[in-house]
């Protein structure tokens, strides 16, 4: 019992930092409606800045002073990010903002690498709080007790700020209707910057406060973001008390999990989240989201039409070139092309659900990696012939999509995005932690195709036929009645339902189909590489696909495919540079701000301008 209590205290202490980061994210989301993916990066920044300051400032005053100062510095940095990156794109669709914050993640990663180097930093012990206190004879670190004592004050201070001050009232009003707050004479721009700065500062404090318990390293940003999302989703987006309860819940569970179920620590929190969301779809203390409530309806989508003769012949010419490639290309080019086609199919499947279905999935890698793992596991453990195992890739991914979709489809917007992300993290943690089956980060190796396909040329044709076939099939679906129903559900769910379309059902089927196609891509992928690792399931993999779709252009059909081609080439070239993340991040941010239509969209606009066939204005 005493041991359990001590464990509980450790959990509470861990919750403190998690709560700080999560409350910052929640606050920012509440007011700006932006899911700040770079929030984990601010947390990491807090840890690094904190370590540096603690080295400079001496003694106990220096230690606590450093923590305080860290929040201010990170807050200031957040304000700059908000003004430079986010201000120009508040009116842009959600996805653009998310992609922009992802660009910020990349930039911060490389900035941290430049300034602090690749070495992990140990956090200093808090002066005067080095040892343990005995509680019921169990040792509990003094620092833990102090943190547990501080947290209620932080919670109270935040609560006071939000409920009792004019700023807090304005923040809550803006959470509901920011345009109206503006119409009442409040400068929203500064309110947003202020809230973003405060949220970033909270993340910075979280990073600095956990230093004596952990340290600072370059993986912190992605490591915490999964838990933070879980906390915010469980607590309810925009609710501070909710974030606190959820942070405690998750942290205590984690500590107990480490003791009693060491294999399942990562999985546990996602299971809790799934349970909470089944009972309360908007989190413990969250408010139901009503689409369009915030007056954020963008310009209507232009209808997508099948290609005309010019487009068709261009596609045919491209396919012809691809078909004759093996007659002159070397092995390297064919491998690159296989990668490109696999990526294009993966991106096209995401584009299908995102562009056509309007569902921003943040965990699409779960289906790509899931398919790859399904096939690889069969080959690895049972020696299943490749032909059969390969079929299991799309099948398993489809089943996985049916399972995940069952939870996610009922949600919309950011909740949908967060939940898909959390589920993909669940799949990732299974692959990462269930070592007896998946071999963890050692990955599954020696997954080669059947003899008749083994070799660059046959496998190239295999990839070409299935990859291009998959992409064409998706295009066909988009132009079918099912595709029209899907688009109707995206553009106007209520009207679509009034016309007799079961929108949720259509979306569910589309989600599963996207999963099948991603799984197909994963299947081709695993046999082309001969191995699969948990990295294929990481957040980063999902984001790669998102960025590709975005770069290509969300509102265009070819967007995913063109973006994938572009990205494969650019990455091949960029990754040779030391600070390629910084460059890529800046490119992404620049595209979001300057050319938000993406490559294909911008080209189309240019083409239309050249031919001067812009749609004439619709008269009243």
């Amino acid at each position: 019992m005493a041991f359990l209590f001590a464990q509980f205290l450790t959990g509470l202490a861990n919750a403190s930092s998690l709560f700080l980061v999560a409350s910052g994210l929640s606050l920012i989301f509440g007011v700006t409606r932006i899911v700040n993916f770079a929030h984990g990066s601010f947390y990491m920044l807090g840890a690094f800045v904190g370590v540096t300051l603690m080295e400079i400032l001496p003694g106990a005053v220096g230690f606590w002073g450093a923590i305080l100062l860290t929040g201010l510095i990170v807050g200031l940095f957040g304000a700059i990010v908000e003004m430079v990156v986010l201000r120009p794109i508040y009116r842009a669709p959600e996805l653009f903002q998310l992609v922009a914050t992802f660009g910020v993640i990349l930039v911060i990663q490389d900035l941290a690498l430049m300034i602090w180097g690749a070495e992990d930093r140990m956090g200093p012990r808090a002066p005067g709080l080095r040892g343990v206190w005995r509680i019921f004879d169990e040792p509990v670190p003094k620092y833990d007790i102090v943190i547990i004592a501080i947290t209620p004050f932080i919670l109270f201070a935040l609560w006071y700020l939000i409920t009792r001050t004019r700023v807090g009232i304005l923040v809550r009003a803006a959470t509901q209707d920011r345009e109206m707050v503006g119409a009442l004479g409040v400068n929203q721009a500064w309110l947003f910057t202020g809230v973003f700065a405060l949220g970033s500062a909270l993340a910075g404090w979280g990073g600095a406060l956990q230093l004596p318990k952990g340290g600072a390293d370059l993986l912190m940003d992605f490591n915490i973001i999964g838990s933070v999302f879980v906390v915010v989703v469980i607590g309810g987006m925009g609710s501070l008390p909710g974030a606190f309860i959820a942070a405690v819940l998750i942290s205590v569970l984690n500590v107990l999990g480490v003791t009693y179920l060491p294999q399942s620590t990562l999985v546990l929190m996602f299971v809790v989240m799934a349970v909470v969301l089944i009972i309360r779809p908007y989190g413990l203390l969250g408010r139901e989201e009503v689409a369009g409530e915030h007056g954020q309806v963008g310009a209507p989508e232009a209808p997508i039409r099948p290609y005309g003769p010019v487009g068709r012949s261009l596609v045919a010419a491209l396919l012809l070139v691809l078909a004759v490639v093996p007659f002159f290309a070397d092995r390297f080019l064919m491998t690159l092309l296989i990668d490109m086609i696999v990526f294009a199919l993966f991106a096209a499947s995401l584009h299908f659900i995102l562009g056509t279905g309007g569902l921003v999935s943040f965990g699409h890698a779960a289906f790509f990696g899931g398919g790859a793992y399904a096939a690889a596991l069969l080959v690895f453990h049972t020696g299943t012939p490749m032909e059969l195992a390969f079929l299991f890739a799309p099948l398993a991914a489809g089943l996985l999509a049916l399972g995940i979709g069952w939870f996610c489809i009922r949600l919309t917007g950011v909740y949908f995005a967060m939940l898909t992300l959390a589920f993909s993290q669940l799949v990732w943690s299974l692959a990462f932690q269930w070592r007896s089956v998946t071999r963890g980060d050692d990955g599954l190796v020696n997954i080669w195709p059947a003899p008749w396909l083994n070799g660059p040329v046959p496998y190239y044709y295999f990839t070409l036929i299935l990859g291009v076939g998959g992409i064409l099939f998706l295009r066909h679906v988009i132009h079918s009645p099912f595709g029209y129903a899907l688009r109707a559900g995206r553009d106007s769910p209520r009207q679509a339902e009034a016309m007799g379309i079961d929108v949720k059902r259509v979306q569910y089927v589309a989600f599963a189909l996207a999963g099948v196609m991603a799984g197909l891509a994963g299947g081709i992928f695993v046999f082309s590489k001969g191995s699969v690792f948990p990295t294929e399931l990481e957040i980063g993999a999902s984001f790669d696909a998102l960025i590709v779709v975005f770069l290509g252009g969300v509102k265009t059909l070819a967007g995913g495919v063109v973006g994938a081609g572009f990205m494969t080439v650019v990455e091949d070239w960029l990754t040779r540079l030391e600070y390629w993340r910084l460059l890529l991040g800046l490119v992404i941010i620049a595209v979001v701000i300057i050319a938000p239509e993406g490559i294909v969209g911008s080209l189309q606009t240019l083409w239309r301008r050249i031919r001067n066939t812009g749609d004439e204005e619709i008269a009243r």
Partner: protein
Amino acid sequence: MLSVEGIHSYYGKAHILDGLSFQVSRGEVVALLGRNGAGKSTTMKSVMQLVRPRKGKVVFQGTDVVGQSAFRVAKAGIGYVPEERRIFTDLTVMENLEVGRQPKREGAPEWTVEQLFEIFPNLKERRSNRGKHMSGGEQQMLTIARTLMGNPMLLLLDEPSEGIAPVIVEQMAETILKLKAEGLTVMISEQNLHFARAVADRAIIVESGEKKFDGSFADLEAHPEIRDAYLSV
């Protein structure tokens, strides 16, 4: 005080206001009349810059505000009460009023919470209630009081009589006359001709985003064909 000069406003590609011009002078109450979809709300939003006119000017106190942020227009002294009320449902009455609070303005009547409670006694009783627990009439009172907290010189009231009980409509008319007596300039948009006649000095009729009539209610009485053509009675 306000001079709207040939504004063209759009929703996406739909052309809503087609070169609309009118003026509002200090101290008067003007009623903007017209059918559903005639462009009344868009006119109000275009003055407020919640919808940006693509052409034309909105001159308030000698300055063209077209292209400015809505908050600057509000700071300049225009108070806007939206048709949908848009009160903050999770905030209490007092907090809703706090959001609207702005410093005192030269040349405009000044309002305190106490004064507003005198005009809207229901709000005083419900001062600690959240917006979502209030009736439609009370919400309408709150949204006006909230805007008055900004001490505006010109008040834009978008369809104040819509969706509230007849008894409250009468109260609303009295309220608007009280505001006028305090020296406030008011522009209301209305479909209810009786209500408009009870409170306004002048009528402007819009149809398809164009001005069809501008004059006193006596003039309007004299031309029943205008009323029949542009207003559904």
